[in-house]
């Protein structure tokens, strides 16, 4: 009853001329000014699609279903496999890469370098020139990791004989895969493909993978979610800082390794390798996030983002209710700090599947847990808290497994809602490394970037088209 309004205290949200809010306040009323700007970057038609989706019961219900599936997921490290044998639909001459689909001719330098390296690693060609000719000659199929339940940081290259983490969400049985982290410096994921890189990859396949496989078997698997949660309490956000999580992994793993009847020299190199890489856990964190989010994917009507990924040229997102379609925009540059001797001019645009962590409510979304990270953009611990709190305005809920001490143990904001992103103009924040734009040089810095709004505006219209009025 409109008459009910007459019995209440009038409380006004003012959208537009701020003097109207002032007048209401002057007359003793209550008004809150909205800092309004035309949504969807001023595209009125998208704005209409958005308006239709706001608080629509079909979307709200679908989001609850998707979010519950994400929230209840239990990612468990079940084993180590060979990509060509365990990753679904992985063909013989296929190489997986990060981000949305992209053709060889359009790929950025680091991705091309990494693909050439993978061809050499596979032994499909004997030198760089032949490998490049093979890649450009259409002899190899390139597909996104995400099309195969997989994720990979930076170039995200996975070729058939590479070892991969196998993570299972034990609640609904879906699997997720990721490659192994090679450490900092010259690495395939940054496009390096020299002999030392290939030698290390071989060692990872021949020594590291079997050792990890045996260890994980002896442990009977490893619950990843509690480990991530614990790392959040130890200053990681499990995207750009994995120091604590990598240590926790090694602590769990080392006793199994010692029982595994592996030659002592190998045990030593394996331990050294893991201990020497603060990002060792990153790929596990990513696979766990992928497993959680895939269980939320494919709910008709849901506006929850289930993947954000970059291929160094384009930034792409996928949304639960719009199937396997990607919504892409130009990959942004990263605002951050550079290693000595490098500047923004050397940086490749945003690259890698690692934004799966932000999509799952950790990484930049859990920055409050990791004040050390905010320094990459000259911020303070307060900024870290503010960044996390800002993300609460574009998410469906809080992940009650990922609690944040500095927010009185409130859950991390999770489940990005495309509607809220477009309506508020608040872009999802992403902590990320910065790759050199040329292949093989490696990481040159780290910082913060934001998912481009254009991805979300396209997704809003696409979702609106899936929902029939009624």
């Amino acid at each position, binding site marked *: *009853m*409109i*008459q009910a*309004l*007459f019995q209440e*205290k*009038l*409380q*006004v*949200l*003012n*959208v*537009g001329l701020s*003097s*109207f*809010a002032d*007048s*209401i306040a*002057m*007359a003793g009323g209550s*008004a*809150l*000014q*909205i*800092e*309004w700007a*035309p*949504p969807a970057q001023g595209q*009125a038609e998208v*704005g*209409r699609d*958005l*308006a*239709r989706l*706001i*608080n629509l019961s079909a979307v709200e219900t679908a989001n609850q279903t998707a979010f519950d599936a994400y929230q209840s997921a239990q990612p468990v490290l079940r084993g180590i496999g060979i990509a060509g044998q365990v990753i679904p639909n992985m063909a013989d001459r296929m190489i997986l890469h990060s981000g949305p689909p992209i053709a060889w001719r359009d790929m950025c330098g680091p991705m091309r370098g990494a693909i050439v390296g993978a061809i050499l690693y596979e032994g499909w060609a004997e030198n760089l020139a032949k490998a490049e000719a093979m890649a450009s000659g259409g002899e190899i199929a390139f597909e996104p990791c995400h099309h195969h339940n997989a994720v990979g940081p930076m170039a995200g290259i996975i070729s058939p004989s590479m070892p991969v983490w196998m993570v299972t969400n034990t609640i609904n049985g879906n699997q997720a895969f990721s490659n192994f982290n090679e450490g900092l410096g010259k690495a395939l994921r940054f496009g390096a493909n020299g002999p030392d890189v290939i030698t290390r990859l071989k060692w990872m396949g021949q020594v590291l993978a079997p050792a990890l496989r045996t260890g994980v078997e002896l442990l009977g698997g490893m619950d990843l979610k509690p480990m991530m949660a614990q790392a959040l309490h130890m200053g990681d956000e499990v995207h750009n800082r994995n120091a604590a999580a990598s240590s926790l992994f090694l602590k769990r793993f080392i006793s199994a390794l010692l029982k595994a009847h592996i030659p002592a020299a190998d045990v030593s190199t394996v331990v050294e390798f893991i201990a020497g890489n603060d990002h060792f856990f990153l790929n596990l964190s990513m696979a766990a996030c992928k497993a959680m989010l895939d269980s939320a994917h494919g709910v008709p009507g849901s506006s929850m983002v289930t993947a954000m990924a970059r291929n160094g040229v384009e930034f792409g997102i996928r949304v639960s209710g719009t199937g396997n379609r990607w919504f892409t925009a130009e990959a942004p540059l990263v605002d951050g*700090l*550079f*290693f*000595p*001797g490098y500047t923004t001019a050397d940086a490749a645009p945003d690259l890698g599947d690692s934004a799966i962590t932000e999509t799952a409510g950790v990484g930049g979304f859990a920055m409050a847990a990791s004040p050390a990270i905010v*320094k*990459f953009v*000259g911020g*303070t*611990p*307060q900024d870290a*808290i*503010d960044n*996390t709190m*800002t993300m609460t*305005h574009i998410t469906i809920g809080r992940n009650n497994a990922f609690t944040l001490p500095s*927010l*009185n143990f409130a859950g991390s904001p999770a489940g990005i809602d495309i509607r*809220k992103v477009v*309506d*508020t*103009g*608040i872009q999802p924040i992403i902590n990320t490394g910065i790759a050199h734009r040329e292949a093989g040089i490696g990481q040159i810095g*780290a910082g913060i970037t934001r998912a481009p709004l254009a991805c979300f505006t396209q997704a809003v219209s696409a979702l609106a088209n899936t929902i029939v009025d009624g």
Partner: protein
Amino acid sequence: MATAAKVLRNFYRDSVSLMQLSSTFAKLPGVEQASAVMASPNNIRLLRDAGLLTESVDASANDLLISLQGNAGALESALAAAESALKQPPSSSENGLSRGIPPRSIEMGLGNMVGANLVLISTPGEYAASEAFKALSLGLNVMLFSDNVELKDEIALKRFAQSRDLIVMGPDCGTAIINGIPLAFANVVRHGVIGVVGASGTGLQQVTCLADRWGGGISQAIGTGGHDLHRDVGGISMLQGLKALAADPSTSVIVLISKPPSPEVAGRVLEAAEGAGKPVVANFLGADPALVRRGNVFAATTLEDAAAAAVALAEGRNPDDAKPKCTPISIPSGLSPGQQYIRGLYSGGTFCYEATLLLKKELGQVFSNTPVDPGDRLHDVWTSRAHTVVDLGDDLFTRGRPHPMIDHRLRNERLIKEATDPETAVILLDVVLGHGSHADPAGEIVPVVQKARDLAGKAGRDLVIVGFVCGTAGDPQNLARQEMALREAGVILAESNAQAVRMATAVAVRAGAVGGRL
């Protein structure tokens, strides 16, 4: 390009801090590139490769190395500044939770104001319907001040609102008073028992201000927007407002204001009014009172009559005896023979329309940009002919400028133009006070009135300027002060638009008669 380096022994900083410091040092005057690193052999090699380090340094991984590249003259002081920055204790940061950000959407605003029950929207028209739709979807009533909203959107919004028992006031709703709070362009009126529903913003302002002036008070004033009684909209908001006021125990008299609705909508509204269970005064500008009058429904032909009838009914008096009396006007003797026409320069659209109706009845043809009869359209809106009244708030005039209630320049220019026209006998003005309007309209008008009179005087003519102030003692501009300033400048003030029009008519009739004799 020179380089300089400095080693700080046993001085540890983590790598992120160092990267941050490096970027700070690079901004020091005269510095091109800067680096602060722990002096491991690897880092030293990197610096040499980057050309940042040319001298030999004796340092280990436990030492911090600052190296700079830039103007030779600037490096020494830059190194000192860098070192002192490094040794400064970190600034203390705020504790506690987030500083928060201002709400950027209606939904976000609802998070900050959980009890919100109305959204006031004044965005550009192309976005306004979407914002209104969001508000309704979130269970909030809407006042849509924005104009240029398509009729099909208005219909969709109002039907959606109706299905959720919410109301959309507008689009193009300039005025409302809900629970005593003035919204958008509204006046500060006494609280009372008169509830108003109006399709016209200035109509609502006139009725509420006159009721206030004559001792009445307002319970609620609900705007519907100008198109609500269009056949295709069907008066949804007016019917909702009427129903709410009928059920409201604090309201004992209801006033309805609109241009004449389409016959079927009028039928529906009057039927609902008849069932309101309390007296209703209906002012359908230009409608035949006989078709309106029935049972508890009283017909008012002007906004002034509507206000007077409502005050009478609220006091238990007979509204038919409550016609306001017109103050007689003394016609100045200095009008020249050719001065015979009225020029009405309105900022309020409904005032202009009401004036046109009243003048036509007395004087025949009256030209306007918003004519009652299409044949009376003023084709060149910038030039008056014969009796002319213009709505300066019309899009034709306001394109690219603020509304004349806020910005008086356009009307002031026109006022001078009319004053120099030897055929102008009377200039007719409305002055609207209240929230949203100009902070001191009299201050804007008075100098121009003086100039206009001077110009006419120099040409040997007298000039009559008649006006009225739509406002209250409680308005921020203060009614009494505004009226005093205008009177002192020689503006003849009436209490209402209708009275001002009658005064102007009296002058024009007399002038015309005199002119006719000559």
